């Protein structure tokens, strides 16, 4: 009797709190790590008495950020806008070009080497040329963000479409589906997980592009603010600007991740989804 009682009741009792504990831990841990980094940083700066213009303490960074909150917000808004515009162009061009390259071996073979070559160019080297063409300002930054961000999208969409299982294609071809129907019904849905995964990479890349361009040639934006701050030895302000950039990056990443989860839930049957009707 005793043994059956244990068998009947113990496993669910022990398992559920364990899973729950893990789940809430997964939500808390990122914050613990972030706060931990700041605490260690603060302690290191204070214990070793590091000069502020070498490495400011987090407390000094936050104080400076609060003091200069208005210019920081204005410039952050500029950077965010530039990045998002460049990113949106990258999504459109990357998606369309990815479909074209992924669905035709001929287009793939002809364009891929040129694209690899283009992607190997460090984009910071392109900024001065863009300035010659478009002048100092927002447009070179948008183009730089676009140039960096579109490649991962293109490659992922192309790979997603090009690697569709022949069996799945046969299902549609056997019904007399046209080439475009096969792409639309199988290729595109199949490529969506790749596409949304690439968005998370691309948005971070777009921020890099914007800030690089703003640092080299702009009179607005976080990149420009950091340039000005460091030239005036306002190192805490430069760090505060970096921090704001990270926060924007995380925010955009979370938006992309949420869209991904919503659109391609079928591809992410993780540990927390239980299959039904097995057997």
């Amino acid at each position, binding site marked *: 009797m005793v043994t059956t009682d244990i068998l009947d009741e113990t496993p669910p009792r022990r398992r559920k709190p364990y899973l729950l504990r893990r789940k809430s831990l997964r939500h808390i841990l990122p914050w613990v790590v972030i706060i931990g980094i700041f605490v260690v940083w603060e302690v290191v700066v204070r214990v070793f008495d590091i000069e502020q213009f070498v490495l400011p303490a987090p407390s000094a960074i936050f104080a400076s950020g609060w003091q200069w909150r208005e210019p920081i917000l204005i410039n952050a808004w500029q950077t965010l806008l530039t990045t998002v515009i460049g990113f949106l162009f990258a999504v459109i061009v990357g998606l369309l070009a990815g479909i074209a390259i992924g669905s035709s071996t001929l287009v793939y073979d002809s364009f891929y080497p040129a694209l690899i070559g283009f992607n190997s160019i460090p984009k910071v080297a392109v900024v001065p040329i863009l300035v010659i063409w478009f002048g100092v300002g927002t447009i070179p930054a948008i183009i730089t963000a676009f140039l960096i961000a579109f490649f991962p999208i293109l490659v992922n969409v192309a790979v997603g479409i090009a690697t569709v299982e022949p069996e799945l294609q*046969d299902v549609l071809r056997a*019904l007399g589906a046209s080439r475009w129907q096969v792409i639309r*019904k199988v290729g595109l849905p199949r490529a969506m997980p790749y596409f949304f995964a690439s968005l998370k990479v691309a948005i971070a890349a777009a921020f890099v592009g914007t800030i690089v361009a703003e640092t080299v040639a702009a009179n607005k934006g976080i990149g420009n603010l950091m340039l000005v701050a460091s030239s005036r030895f306002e190192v805490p302000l430069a760090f505060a600007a970096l921090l704001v950039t990270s926060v924007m990056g995380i925010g955009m990443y979370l938006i992309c991740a949420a869209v991904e989860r919503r659109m391609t839930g079928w591809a992410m049957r993780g540990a927390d989804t239980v299959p039904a009707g097995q057997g």
Partner: protein
Amino acid sequence: MTFVDVDCVSLRYGEDADGTLALHKATLQVGNGEFVAVVGPSGCGKSTLMKVVTGLWPPTVGAVIVSGREVTGPLSIAGMAFQNPTLLPWRTTLANVMLPLEIVQPHCSRLRREWAAYLAKARDLLALVGLKGFEDHFPWQLSGGMQQRASLCRALIHDPSLLMLDEPFASLDMFTREELWLALQDLWLARKPTVILVTHDLREAVFLSDRVLVMSARPGRIIAERVVNLPRPRDLDSTYESYSVALVHELREHISAARSTAA
């Protein structure tokens, strides 16, 4: 009346003369509404034959005539089920079954207007193979047997006059397989499409078909043919009766002979 006429068809993979010759002068006729099973040793070109008949691959030599017309491209009057269920993982069972309706005319242009009717049809079909209640499940939430049933429904939803089954039950356990034989027999008796079933299970061939064709080892061609004289509907016990057992035995000998000549 002959519905499918494969006339002296050869197929060689690859462009040059040293490519694999998968079919060599294969000839067969299938009557309208007939259920034909094709059996043969493994690698004998059974699946190739399926692809040639449905127009997925053009024959190197010879012609395939289906419903009075020469096959030059994929046939939309054909429904196909493969060894793997090949359901699209981003679609629910119901949406998977309804996929052919989005492509094959005249359903394609009627689909939006008569959505409710088509939906009811898909649900009925799923209920017929015992998948009632699983319409909104995704393929990965179904067992292998359930996926294969859904795949059968998908092959039938657009009322194809030709049903091509390429070892559809090969990856299933024996009990599920027998269950699906009955389901397939019911579906066939209800609609009477022409069926070509490729299989390596001789009991399956004898139980389901009107006629069994035996293919030789590669390059494949038809070397023997046996008519199955059993009344319909058949029950599973019939596969253990002396008539079926003798037939299976005879087919087995044909296949062993085909294998030994190849080796």
